[in-house]
């Protein structure tokens, strides 16, 4: 009876705790609603009141037109300041202020992305642990989720510290600009701060309550807390995105930059949602990469086979999640770019066909290397399975296809040349290689790379298994037909593109992408169904994998980090000499676009700095380990993500 009472008490406390979190989550929204509509200033009631109600000397409320929404609204803010180069608007050290801000921004973003992504993994894995009927598997999932959140906890403190550094950097080096931004986003910034408090509280209780809320109903409450945590995290990200989206495609202000009282217009600019989607997916891929690198680090430093087995499995799961989000990432990027073109065509041209176009070539190299590394890791993973040797002979052909496509993918359209070189080559385009520098070839190349990666994954799924379903022959024949015709279709469309005008050719990318996605969804789904109840040729021996595979995971994470830095720089520098595009001009001495070499060095510095500090975080995490992780004994079956073998 006493136990029952204790349990009932626990339930009540759990409900109260959850209710508090939900309340904290909703509180800022309630607070922001009345203030938000007017930007914190008294509502301009005079505009609706009859003229007779006004004092004789009262000024009429000035109205102006929204620069983007084209709606009329009362002017409640000051015009965007016209800055001048000097200590008032741009106080500085004897150093380029923009570079300092760049580092502070990028580091905060890296850590912010990481701590946003990892709790999402935690939520999914902990939930999988709850619904799994096998107790041993459930414990392993639970341990994995706990490992994930433990890493993000230290990173969370660092994110907050870096956020503080970022705000101080803005305040001390760009006070006028930051003041203008804060005057518009005041309610959003307060909401952000309150949500941050709510997130911190939820995260700490989620982490420290793990053991106490391990069983039964309390476990459900615990996993519900992770949902609350992730909702807060995602809203935080979206609010922060509204600031950068406003800087790039302002709305809610008139052509002088005066705030018109509608906070939703200021938040919901035309690029806000594409940035939200792109960042969320990108963060997930990045988070997967960093956790995979952590697992690789722990694998490489492991002392026992049990530890190696656990961290091998952890690395695989993290890599799997990362790649799942890597595949849709280019499509989200495509949407963002399309919206940029729709907003300002010139901005799109500056990005992809002008000043910043060469950075996209570097991006292509990074994307290619990400896929190459993913394939390499999957091939190395075949070593874990007995019976997978039968697939080794196909790898060399896949390497050939991937490398060929990679070379086409990174071929530039034009080169920067001296007049002599230009004359020797007979023009800006090389007579042979120039043919591979066009989008027709590149679309074919990248889709072939992704389709081959899907094929590698299907091969990996089958590693040690032979399908035993009655329709296995038909299924295999269908998979063969699907991939063969898909390759022909992708390459055929790429060649077809050379013979038709540009306005028709541009549409071919859509069926090419659809072909790749067909292989991904139909191929992987069909293969997974075929492998249900399949005959195993041997066990999957976790931990029995080459050291090279772990370096591949580290490479994957580093490439994600570098690409994130690069794309962030591209998106930010496309504003050119504007703080807020076409509203507030950047009159500092640094309102120019850096050379590619300088930008690349800065990105590399940021990547290096992040990895050194995150290694410190990993090391701190390892100090807290008192016992060995839930062992995945060598040779024993360990849970893998749905769809895997």
């Amino acid at each position, binding site marked *: 009876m006493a136990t029952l009472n204790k349990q009932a008490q626990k339930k009540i406390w759990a409900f109260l705790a959850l209710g508090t979190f939900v309340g904290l989550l909703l509180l800022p929204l309630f607070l922001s609603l009345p203030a938000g509509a007017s930007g914190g200033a008294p509502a301009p009631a005079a505009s609706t009141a009859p003229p007779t109600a006004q004092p004789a000397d009262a000024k009429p409320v000035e109205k102006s037109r929204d620069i983007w929404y084209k709606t009329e609204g009362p002017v409640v803010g000051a015009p965007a300041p016209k800055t001048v180069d000097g200590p008032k608007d741009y106080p500085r050290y004897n150093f380029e202020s923009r570079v300092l801000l760049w580092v502070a921004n990028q580091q905060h973003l890296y850590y912010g992305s990481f701590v946003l992504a990892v709790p999402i993994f935690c939520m999914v894995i902990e939930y999988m642990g709850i619904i799994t009927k096998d107790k041993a598997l459930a414990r392993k999932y639970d341990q994995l989720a706990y490992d994930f959140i433990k890493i993000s906890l230290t990173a969370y403190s660092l994110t907050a510290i870096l956020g503080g550094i970022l705000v101080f950097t803005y305040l001390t080096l760009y006070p006028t600009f930051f003041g203008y931004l804060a005057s518009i986003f005041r309610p959003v910034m307060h909401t952000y701060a309150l949500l941050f408090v709510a997130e911190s509280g939820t995260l700490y209780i989620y982490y420290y309550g793990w053991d106490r809320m391990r069983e039964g109903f309390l476990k459900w409450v615990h996993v519900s807390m992770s949902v609350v945590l992730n909702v807060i995290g995602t809203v935080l990200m979206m609010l922060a995105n509204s600031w950068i989206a406003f800087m790039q495609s302002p709305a809610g202000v008139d052509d002088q930059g005066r705030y018109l009282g509608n906070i939703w217009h200021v938040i919901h600019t035309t690029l806000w949602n594409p940035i939200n989607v792109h960042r969320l997916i990108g963060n997930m891929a990045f988070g997967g990469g960093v956790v995979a690198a952590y697992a690789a680090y722990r694998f490489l430093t492991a002392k026992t086979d049990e530890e190696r087995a656990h961290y091998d499995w952890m690395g695989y799961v993290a890599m799997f999640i990362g790649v799942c989000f890597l595949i849709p990432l280019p499509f989200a990027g495509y949407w963002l770019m399309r919206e940029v073109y729709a907003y300002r065509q010139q901005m799109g041209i500056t990005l992809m066909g002008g000043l910043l176009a060469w950075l996209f070539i570097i991006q292509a190299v990074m994307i290619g290397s990400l896929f190459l590394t993913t394939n390499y890791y999957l091939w190395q993973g075949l070593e874990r399975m007995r019976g997978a040797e039968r697939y080794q002979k196909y790898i060399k052909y896949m390497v050939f296809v991937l490398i060929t496509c990679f070379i086409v993918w990174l071929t530039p359209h034009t080169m920067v040349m001296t007049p002599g070189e230009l004359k020797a080559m007979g023009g800006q385009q090389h007579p042979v290689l120039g043919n591979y520098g066009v989008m027709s070839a590149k679309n074919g190349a990248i889709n072939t790379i992704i389709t081959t990666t899907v094929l590698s994954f299907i091969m990996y799924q089958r590693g040690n298994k032979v399908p035993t379903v009655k329709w*296995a022959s038909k299924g295999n024949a269908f998979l063969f*037909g699907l991939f063969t015709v898909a390759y022909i279709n992708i390459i055929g469309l790429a060649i077809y593109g050379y*013979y038709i005008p540009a306005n028709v050719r541009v*549409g071919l990318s859509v*069926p090419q992408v659809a072909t790749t996605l*067909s292989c991904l969804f139909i191929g992987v789904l069909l293969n997974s169904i075929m492998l249900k109840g399949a005959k195993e040729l041997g066990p999957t021996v976790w931990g029995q994998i080459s050291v090279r595979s772990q370096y591949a995971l580290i490479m994957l994470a580093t490439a994600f980090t570098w690409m994130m830095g690069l794309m962030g720089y591209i998106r930010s520098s496309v504003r050119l000499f504007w703080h807020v595009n076409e509203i507030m001009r950047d009159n500092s001495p640094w309102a120019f676009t850096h050379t590619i070499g300088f930008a690349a060095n800065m990105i590399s510095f940021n990547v290096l700095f992040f990895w050194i500090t995150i290694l410190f975080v990993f090391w701190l995490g390892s100090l807290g380990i008192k016992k060995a992780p839930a062992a995945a004994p060598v040779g024993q079956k360990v849970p893998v993500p749905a769809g895997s073998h």
Partner: protein
Amino acid sequence: MADQESQVSTGTKVAFTIGSLILATIYFTALDYALMNMQGLDFFYLFRK
């Protein structure tokens, strides 16, 4: 049951493969046509001009 695939004759396998190739060709051609049409573009542009 252990190895269903080995019990199927080579002739049947070839027939399945040819059938799959035809099926996949129809699927991808229809996909190409439909997606180009959706964008207001003519997939068979080259052959009509």
